[in-house]
């Protein structure tokens, strides 16, 4: 069951990836533009997010309303989201509407109006997004965790800061657009019921004559402190813990992934069992693996009522420290079953496949085949995971808490 994956890199450095899925009626597209919030200048944090909102407010020959109507009439479910490295434009609809959707995205990426008279509205929305974060304690603690565990600008959050957003000007926004919205390094991935040759031709016509290279350089700041508590009157204390792992592409990558899944991949995994099932300390507890090209980490989260939060943190840290002691064969078997099952089920999701293609291309410069990933999952053993954990044990934790009182950890 090897799906057909196609690739073409145009002379301007833009890469098109596609996977044909004959059994579906839809198609999903995914642009990764190298315009993540890592490129927000330190005095104008929030710039990338404001630009991503403004960019869909009119493009080509359509004004903001006409563009929205055209996108909606194609039945596109879509989003524009600003991550650390990329601004992602995602859309999915019935496959026959894909060519027309690509036409609209070519306008958005290449010919946006970035209208002056919408800038105040977009800035107001960005400020509200930031204010709204205060009403979402879980997101808030994760944003703070990033800030306290990564050096700038890796620590940036797309929401930026009040001062940063207030400082944005029309010229500054346009300048950032010209700096980062360039074809070299841009990735477009498509998955669904598509034909490769007509897709390639269309994308070539729409983007082939675009030239330019984004300036994606950045300089890392010093490492931040790794403990913080934010005081807030909440029912539950929010707990975030992070530690380093190895990035995708590293020889230990699948073992690192296996270890995180032993911790938190499913409901019989350690964190859920020890923190929730055995002690009833929380509703939500998890750990997840996050990778950049050159570094990776494991982010853990738990939320517990204030009087029980210290115990939750203690059990969480105990489980992290216990990983290098080794994992059991039946734990590994369950991890393998879960990873393989989700790998196969991803073949049913156009959105999932489109994202996977682009992510592989960005991180590895190639698309991993189904068989390659399956073989790597099959190759996991208690020994391989155990040895990896001893080479790279969870340690030097960054711990951030949000709640009425600080915890000891």
């Amino acid at each position: 069951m090897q799906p057909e994956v196609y690739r073409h890199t145009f002379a301007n450095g833009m890469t098109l990836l596609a996977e044909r899925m004959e059994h579906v009626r839809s198609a999903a597209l995914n642009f990764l533009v190298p315009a993540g919030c890592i490129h927000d200048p330190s005095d104008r944090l929030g710039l990338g997010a404001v630009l991503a909102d403004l960019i869909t407010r009119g493009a080509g020959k359509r004004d903001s309303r006409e563009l929205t109507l055209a996108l909606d009439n194609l039945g596109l479910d879509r989003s524009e989201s600003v991550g650390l490295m990329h601004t992602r434009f995602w859309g999915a609809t019935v496959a026959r509407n894909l060519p027309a959707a690509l036409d609209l995205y070519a306008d958005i990426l290449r010919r946006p109006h970035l209208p002056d008279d919408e800038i105040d509205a977009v800035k107001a929305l960005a400020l509200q997004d930031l204010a709204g974060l205060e009403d979402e304690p879980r997101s808030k603690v994760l944003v703070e965790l990033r800030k306290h565990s990564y050096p700038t600008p890796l620590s940036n959050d797309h929401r930026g800061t009040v001062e940063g957003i207030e400082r944005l000007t029309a010229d500054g926004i346009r300048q950032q657009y010209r700096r980062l919205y360039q074809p070299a390094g841009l990735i477009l991935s498509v998955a669904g019921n598509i034909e490769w040759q007509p897709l390639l031709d269309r994308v070539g016509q729409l983007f082939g004559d675009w030239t330019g290279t984004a300036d994606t350089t950045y300089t890392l700041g010093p490492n931040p402190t790794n403990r913080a508590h934010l005081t807030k009157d909440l029912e539950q204390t929010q707990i975030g813990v992070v530690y380093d792992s190895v990035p995708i592409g590293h020889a230990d990558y699948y073992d690192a992934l296996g270890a995180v899944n032993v911790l938190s991949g499913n409901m019989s995994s350690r964190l859920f069992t020890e923190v929730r099932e055995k002690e009833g300390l929380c509703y939500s507890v998890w750990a997840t693996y996050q990778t950049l090209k050159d570094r990776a980490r494991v982010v853990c989260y738990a939320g517990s009522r204030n009087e029980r939060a210290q115990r939750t943190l203690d059990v969480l840290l105990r489980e992290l420290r216990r990983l290098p002691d080794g994992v059991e064969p039946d734990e590994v078997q369950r991890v393998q079953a879960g990873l393989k099952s989700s790998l196969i089920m991803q073949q049913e999701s156009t959105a999932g496949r489109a994202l996977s293609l682009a992510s592989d291309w960005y991180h590895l410069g190639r698309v991993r085949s189904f068989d390659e990933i399956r073989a790597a999952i099959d190759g996991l053993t208690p020994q391989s995971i155990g040895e990896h954990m001893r080479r790279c044990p969870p340690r030097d934790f960054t711990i951030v808490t949000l709640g009425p009182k600080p915890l000891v950890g």
Partner: protein
Amino acid sequence: MPFHRHTLSNGLQIIGESSPSARSAALGFFVRTGSRDETVEECGVTHFLEHMVFKGTPRRTAFDVNRDFDAIGADYNAFTSEETTVFHAAVLPEYLPQAVDLLADIMRPSLRQEDFEMEKQVIIEEIGMYEDQPMWSAYDRAKRLYFADHNLGNSILGTPQSITDLTRDQMHAYFQRRYVAPNLLVAVAGNIDWPAFVALVEKQCGQWESGPIGRDGLVETNGSCRFELLTKEKVAQEHVILISSGPPADSPLRHAADLLGMAVGDDSGSRLYWALVDPGLADSADCSFHEYEGTGAFYTSFSCQPEQSEEDLELVLDVLRDVQDNGISEEELNQARNKVLSRVVRGSERPKGRMMALGMNWIYQHGYRSVDDDLRAYETVTLETIDEVLERYPLDRATTFALGPLAKLSLPGSNGAK
């Protein structure tokens, strides 16, 4: 895609749709019970019971349940609404027999006292988690205000007090009353062998007790039309919810109501989007139609900076009044329809989505509907049907609830609320 159905002698219904090209199979046990079926003393029991279902049976401990699901790589979970509790799992086709064995087994849980006490803590944590998220908490309170003494206003999670007071015996009595075989539906979709599937379900569930089914309080409601403000100084944004009446789930007007909700308040290109979000007056604003057995409702909500809320509320009411008086345009109807058609197609592509639609349609539409049936139903909605919805269910006759830091908020045209 072939549709199949079978009813066991104890009244348990089984339905399925097979799709040989699918990579997976999804199955769900749909229990026709929810928060609206609880007495005051049982507040929160349906959702608590949903958790307890995973805590083991005479054959399995709680850990065995989790371990056995994970050993077959199942993507599984459960949820509780006002009127349905659904337990579902998606698996690779070769593991369907094990998935049936597991789901069917846990549907007859032991409800052990020790597990009950432990899970009580988890439920209270869950309540605390939602309490810290103002929009959720506003939604729960707005529903109570709108539905007043109607059972659809019952809280799904319950309160820390109601959960603390609940006993294992009360839960067991509720279980015996609501989890009888005829009140359950098993739905399956994807790459399946139907006769083999029926045989598996029959073997596991054929002996389940039968019993009377149905529910009380199936009356249509227009809501209380009240206005209430809850001041919480620690909340950053003001969260406002307006609820008005809509057609019930089995009404021929439901597809029109869905499209109307989308035209008024979908997250892109809707009336509320242009009135509030596009100009930066609110960080979110939406309207959607929710259907229930016997009644329905439109939920309109927005959140914004507190000092902006009075003006925003007035703008929202203007939008609702304008739609009420003048309807929507052909262009807006088509725009909403194009979005829905694409969502229906995509939602049905994966067995998990298709199984869920199959089960919900069976319960609420009292029959089978293919994807094409659903598409046709949306295609045939006209502006006249939209007007009929508005005439019978006025969008501007709303109950309003606000939660946030404001000490005072005036409802335009009234004397304000404290």
